[in-house]
């Protein structure tokens, strides 16, 4: 039996442990609840000491019971469920298990402060549990409760190792549902619609498969906020088995939903962090690969001086950054660099300035309508030594860029483009994304046909020979890398050079 003094001492230590853990819980919940976490924190800081003081002054057993219940709530709810299961085990056990087997996903972490305060929340709950048990007067019961807690933690560890593993489950009734989430309206409509057609063509081309493959095609729209609702419905209501998506803006929204549902998401996106190598993978040439090929082709053509005329826009800036690195590496000179706003319509003074720098080639990149206006005004100035990364293939009037050369996605199987244009004569073939959309569907199909969990299959996949040529992926990476190709505009249409 404890003496009254011992209970008194343990009681106040318990109150201190609860208060310190309450501070950590509040900090942790600021990341999810915002200022609402302060209300939670205030309650956790005020109520337990009040109950303990009430008990010490009056000996009221209800006060002690309420104090015990709040302790149990903090230990189980915040310490074990959120702190241990949700944060500490993924950090330690999840990282370890994923390093020894690809059947386990690499854990994806949130903000640093959120994760570390989550671990601290679990550690704090251990102190609360320890001092809480000191309040149990009977030693035998105290030892028994400690044993139950230890066995509980061991059971949680074993359960985590079992449940964290991705296992193969045959598709329900032999039907594999593939969600197709891209914006088919708004500024991305051209890319999105041809993306959908490429995916449909991939499904139509399937022959003699073990399972039936259904596409669940949804327009995410261009607004990420609204896209979330569409993505949630595809994942939760349509219960898709995998997702193929495009456009980084939407891919970044799809990523957490795919992770939560533990289904693979193949995104034809250039933003590499979307591909975490756990459930999310990107499949498109990187800006670095485009820049490297562009600089090599420029060198091959004897180009020494480059003038850059580009719109200030994230993906274009990424191309320019990568290109400048490669241009410098090969000893070429950026003779003039001008970055303009998307609202610019008159480029004549900029063209004059660029011309004064006597470049061998004008590198241009912009979104519509600026792209075609720039092309028109370059033509008016009798400038035809024009080049780019991707841009001419996205132009509404590619004839304005007649003779221009540029890098874009490779098409190992050029017949793919021909078949696409025959099948969908009213849909423009957006070279930059289509072969990757087609290959992405086939990767998922191959995973199911070989009876493997599709996410694990993609984690293990190192090489894939598809319509876009050879795709490769480094171990643990979430980015399928591919080599772009050099294209030109001939007779008003994109054509692969050296084909």
């Amino acid at each position, binding site marked *: 039996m404890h003496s009254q003094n011992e209970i008194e001492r343990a009681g106040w230590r318990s109150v201190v442990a609860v208060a310190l853990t309450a501070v950590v819980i509040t900090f942790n919940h600021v990341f999810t609840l915002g200022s609402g976490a302060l209300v939670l924190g205030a309650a956790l800081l005020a109520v337990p000491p009040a109950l303990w003081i009430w008990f010490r002054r009056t000996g009221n057993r209800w006060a002690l019971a309420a104090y015990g219940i709040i302790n149990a709530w903090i230990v189980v709810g915040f310490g074990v469920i959120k702190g241990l299961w949700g944060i500490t085990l993924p950090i330690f056990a999840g990282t370890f298990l994923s390093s020894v087997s690809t059947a386990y996903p690499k*854990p994806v*972490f949130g903000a640093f402060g959120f994760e570390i305060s989550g*671990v601290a929340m679990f550690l704090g709950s251990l102190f609360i549990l320890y001092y809480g048990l000191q309040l149990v007067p009977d030693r035998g019961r105290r030892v028994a409760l400690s044993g139950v807690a230890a066995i509980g933690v061991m059971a949680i560890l074993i359960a985590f190792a079992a449940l964290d593993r991705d296992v193969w489950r045959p598709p329900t009734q032999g039907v594999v549902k593939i969600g197709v989430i891209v914006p088919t309206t708004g500024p991305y409509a051209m890319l999105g619609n041809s993306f959908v057609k490429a995916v449909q063509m991939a499904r139509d081309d399937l022959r003699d498969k073990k399972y039936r493959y259904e596409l669940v095609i949804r327009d995410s729209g261009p607004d990420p906020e609204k896209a979330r609702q569409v993505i949630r419905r595809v994942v939760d209501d349509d219960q898709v088995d995998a997702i193929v998506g495009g456009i980084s803006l939407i891919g970044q929204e799809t990523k957490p939903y795919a992770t939560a549902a533990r289904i693979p998401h193949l995104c034809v996106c250039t933003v590499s*962090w979307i591909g975490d190598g756990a459930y999310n993978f990107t499949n498109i040439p990187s800006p670095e690969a485009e820049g490297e090929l562009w600089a090599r082709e420029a060198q091959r053509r004897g180009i020494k001086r480059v003038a850059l005329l580009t719109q200030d*826009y994230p*993906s274009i800036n990424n191309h320019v950054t990568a290109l400048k690195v490669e241009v410098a590496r090969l000893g070429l000179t950026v003779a003039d660099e001008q970055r303009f706003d998307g609202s610019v319509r008159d480029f004549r003074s900029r063209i004059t300035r660029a011309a004064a720098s006597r470049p061998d080639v004008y590198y241009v990149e912009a979104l519509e309508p600026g792209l075609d206006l720039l092309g028109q005004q370059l033509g008016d100035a009798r400038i035809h030594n024009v080049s780019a990364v991707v841009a001419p293939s996205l132009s509404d009037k590619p004839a304005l860029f007649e003779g221009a050369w540029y890098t874009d996605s490779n098409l190992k199987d050029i017949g793919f483009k021909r078949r696409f244009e025959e099948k969908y004569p009213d849909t423009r073939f957006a070279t930059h994304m289509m072969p990757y959309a087609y290959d992405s569907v086939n990767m998922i199909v191959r995973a199911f046909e070989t009876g493997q969990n599709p996410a694990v299959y993609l984690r293990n996949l190192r090489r894939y020979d598809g319509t876009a040529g050879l795709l490769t992926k480094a171990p643990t990476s979430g980015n399928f890398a591919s080599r772009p190709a050099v294209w030109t505009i001939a007779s008003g249409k994109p054509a692969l050079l050296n084909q």
Partner: protein
Amino acid sequence: MTRNTFVWLVVIAALAVVLGGASLIVANNPARAGAGAPIGFIH
């Protein structure tokens, strides 16, 4: 050093190891939830 002090030192060291280890793992994870990603990219 009393037994009590020794126990507290062990406890503090264990806490430091756990929190320090977690910090290293989280900070070095390449798949962090994409903070700082640019908005408005096209593809």
